[in-house]
């Protein structure tokens, strides 16, 4: 029999599902081990000691033990519960989208501490009153760049000309910006200089800084129009929370 060994992780709960009578399965994004799923036994009982720290979005120190197929949560020390996410449907929906996006983009057990920090900072920002569209667009750009799917933002994806302040376009299928001439020739959607500037800035800004920014409404709408389908293009299936946000 496999020896049961316990280990500690810093974790964020990115999904919570019910299992059988009183248990739950949590999908965790951990700093040390990346994404993994764990069973939290008895977590739906009112007196469960695991309940507090295994709630959706919770940032916690967890002790896990290797189980037969899934890990088992043995101890939890909740650090941040992000309570405000429950009080505002808009924040709740945006946080759900970010969690679902991370879940669908990363593979099990491929640790990436900067990505953990990005997710944590994004949830903190959403909880602390940061602007949801700014945080979510920033998250999309950063997570895609981190995983190697980031859009090209400095040169034309067709002719490699540097993109200046003039007319430009954006092609989802070609993976980024196009110069004015190529955009015309390929029928790419136009990209406003302000939106391009915002994209470049967001990808560079530390995630904590994003929480203090607020992109202009028109820029935010343009980025959503570009980035949402761009994200979907790289996913196997559409995100349910994205449909929820759209409605």
């Amino acid at each position: 029999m496999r020896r049961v060994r316990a280990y500690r992780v810093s974790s964020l709960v990115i999904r919570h599902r019910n299992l059988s009578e009183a248990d739950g399965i949590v999908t965790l994004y951990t700093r040390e081990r990346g994404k993994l799923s764990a069973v939290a036994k008895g977590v739906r009982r009112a007196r469960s000691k695991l309940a507090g720290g295994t709630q959706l979005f919770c940032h916690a120190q967890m002790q896990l033990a290797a189980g037969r197929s899934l890990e088992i949560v043995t101890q939890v020390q909740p650090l941040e519960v992000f309570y405000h996410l429950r009080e505002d449907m808009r924040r709740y929906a945006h946080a759900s989208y970010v969690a679902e996006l991370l879940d669908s983009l990363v593979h099990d057990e491929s640790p990436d501490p900067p990505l953990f920090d990005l997710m944590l900072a994004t949830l903190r920002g959403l909880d602390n009153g940061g602007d949801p569209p700014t945080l979510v667009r920033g998250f999309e750009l950063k997570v895609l760049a981190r995983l190697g799917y980031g859009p090209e933002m400095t040169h034309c994806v067709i002719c490699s000309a540097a993109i200046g302040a003039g007319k430009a376009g954006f092609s989802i299928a070609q993976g980024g910006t196009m110069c004015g001439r190529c955009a015309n020739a390929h029928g790419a959607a136009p990209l406003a200089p302000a939106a391009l500037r915002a994209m470049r800035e967001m990808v560079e800004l530390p995630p904590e800084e994003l929480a203090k920014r607020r992109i202009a409404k028109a820029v935010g709408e343009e980025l959503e129009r570009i980035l949402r389908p761009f994200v979907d293009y790289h996913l196997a299936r559409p995100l349910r929370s994205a449909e929820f946000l759209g409605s």
Partner: protein
Amino acid sequence: MRAYPRPLARLIEELEKLPGIGPKSAQRLALHVLRASAEEAAALGEAIREVKEKVGTCRVCFNYSAGDLCDLCADPQRDDSLLCVVGDARDLMAMERAGGYRGRYHVLQGLIAPMEGAGPDSLRIAELLSRVREGQWGEVILATNPTVEGEATAMYIAGLLKPLGLKVTRIALGLPVGGDLDYADDVTISRSLEGRREV
């Protein structure tokens, strides 16, 4: 390889589809049914058939009901000024089991969960609003689970009900009876402090 006779194998297959029932349990249950008396087996079959035929949802509160109106809505003894909103029928049963509450109920048939694709439109929220507008309610009690989904749903509904000018309350959140302060998260502890009462 020897197999069970076809009808027995079929029963095992059907039982395996039930939640929490694996191949071994299914086999054990099927053999039990086979060994039981004809009456017992027929009663089980009849109960399964009847539950699908006769049980629907109450047209007023959306609790499970064998008729147009559930027993709770039909009961003239219940308090018509109190309305308790719960996530599903099992939560309603938990409230009833505890006793103490004598008002009416409204079952949402779910909670708002963006990741599951469950939005306000997939719940009985519109029905709740029209019910609240039409009735003479003194108070609406939001008794959804103290989970992220339950809290978010309660807050959302509170936002819709408040403008109607009636008292909207949320069930108390805090330490469970028999719980352990040391294991409670910060939010639970601060909620229980906010909700403290003089003894």
